[in-house]
């Protein structure tokens, strides 16, 4: 009886895994960047903030990719790709349109879907600037043949990833907000803070981030580069979260990597020294406005 149950379990797993689609057609899209608004310098700043945490390699000091140590083991061994201008191992073959499609939907030019890549709410200006930077001759994206490693999802990983589907490509993005709270929300969304600081990155609402379960309440179990378990902190302004954090303490933690208790902010949390003071204030005020969640994370 036990053997039959095990065999049935495997059969269900194989069927479900087989049904999980991870490759999609990219289709032809119409992408006409407004060249007047393109700023490579701003594109570089935004790319370092958004793409850098996963794609920056500290040995080669460029965007040639990295092992993602923080990905739970049951998902598999995952590598952030080389996104330098290299033709074979990088993204040198991508057209501007294909890059726009990749960033908005998370689908590569070969049809591979990467759910954590998608930024459907990224403004047109930021998207254009980032693409202008990725196509530039900047040292961060100078062709590098390095192959960071081969991503190998487990059957469970494929199944989990298969549950999220790419969103349709939106020809027109949003405007970048000027209002402080809206800018804070925009940054928490596009810097993917809510991916890790919510209940689970496996159930994200990428269109309406605040509808994600346990939004910014932390508690998700990740791993650092030594395989130690790291639970993401609660970033809501509850007494179990940031309620007694000053703006200065918040700024120090996210720009210098040192927290209120004078301890370092552990990987996988990146540091963001490129954020402006205005952006940090916006994020702080926005987090203050998020409904507080009681979640003591240890």
């Amino acid at each position, binding site marked *: 009886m036990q053997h039959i149950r095990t065999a049935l379990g495997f059969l269900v797993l194989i069927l479900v895994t087989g049904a999980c689609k991870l490759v999609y057609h990219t289709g032809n899209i119409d992408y006409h960047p407004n060249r007047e608004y393109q700023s490579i310098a701003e594109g570089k700043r935004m790319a370092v903030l958004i793409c850098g945490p996963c794609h*920056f390699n*500290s*040995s080669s000091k460029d965007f040639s990719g*990295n*092992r993602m*140590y923080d990905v739970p083991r049951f998902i598999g061994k995952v590598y952030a790709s080389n996104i330098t201008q290299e033709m074979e191992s990088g993204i040198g073959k991508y057209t501007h349109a294909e890059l726009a499609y990749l960033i908005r939907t998370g689908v590569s030019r070969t049809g591979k879907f990467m759910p954590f890549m998608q930024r459907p709410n990224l403004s047109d200006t930021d998207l254009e600037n980032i693409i202008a930077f990725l196509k530039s001759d900047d040292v961060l994206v100078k062709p590098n043949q390095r192959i960071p490693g081969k991503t190998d999802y487990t059957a469970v990983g494929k199944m989990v990833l298969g549950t999220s589907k790419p969103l349709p490509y939106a020809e027109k993005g949003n405007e970048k907000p000027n209002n402080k709270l809206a800018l804070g929300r925009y940054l928490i969304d596009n810097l993917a803070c809510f991916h890790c600081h919510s209940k689970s990155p496996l159930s994200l609402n990428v269109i309406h981030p605040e509808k994600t379960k346990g939004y910014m309440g932390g508690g998700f179990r990740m791993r*650092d*580069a*030594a*395989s*130690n378990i*790291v639970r993401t902190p609660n970033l809501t302004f509850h007494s179990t979260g940031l309620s007694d954090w000053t703006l200065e303490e918040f700024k120090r933690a996210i720009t*210098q*990597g*040192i927290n209120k208790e*004078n*301890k*370092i*902010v*552990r*990987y996988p949390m*990146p*540091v963001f*020294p490129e954020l402006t003071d205005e952006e940090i204030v916006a994020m702080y005020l926005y987090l203050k406005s998020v409904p507080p969640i009681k979640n003591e994370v240890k």
Partner: protein
Amino acid sequence: MIGYIMSGSIGLWLTAILLMSTLPVVGQSVEGKKIYRKFQCESCHGKVGNGLVDLTNGFQNYNEQKLKQYIMNPGVFGNTRMPAFENLIKEEEFNELIRYLMGLAKKPRSKG
């Protein structure tokens, strides 16, 4: 009989491995390793320096003093990703940590 011999030798091997893992590696500072762990260096650099940011290739052009300055304030050396430890680590802890870090570099393989 073979099983008995094998289990005996495995037992010996396990004891040897256990002993080796508890003994300090020549050239490495045990105290330094504790400090490495205490200040969460392993969070990025891995358990033995081979993590996300690899330390096992040695520190070319860095003597102990320069490495200490780097850890105290990496921003001065162009590293804006690593926290500055100047007000976090005590002087005596620094010395042990540097000794440990210097010992992490892979030893060159002897020829022949």
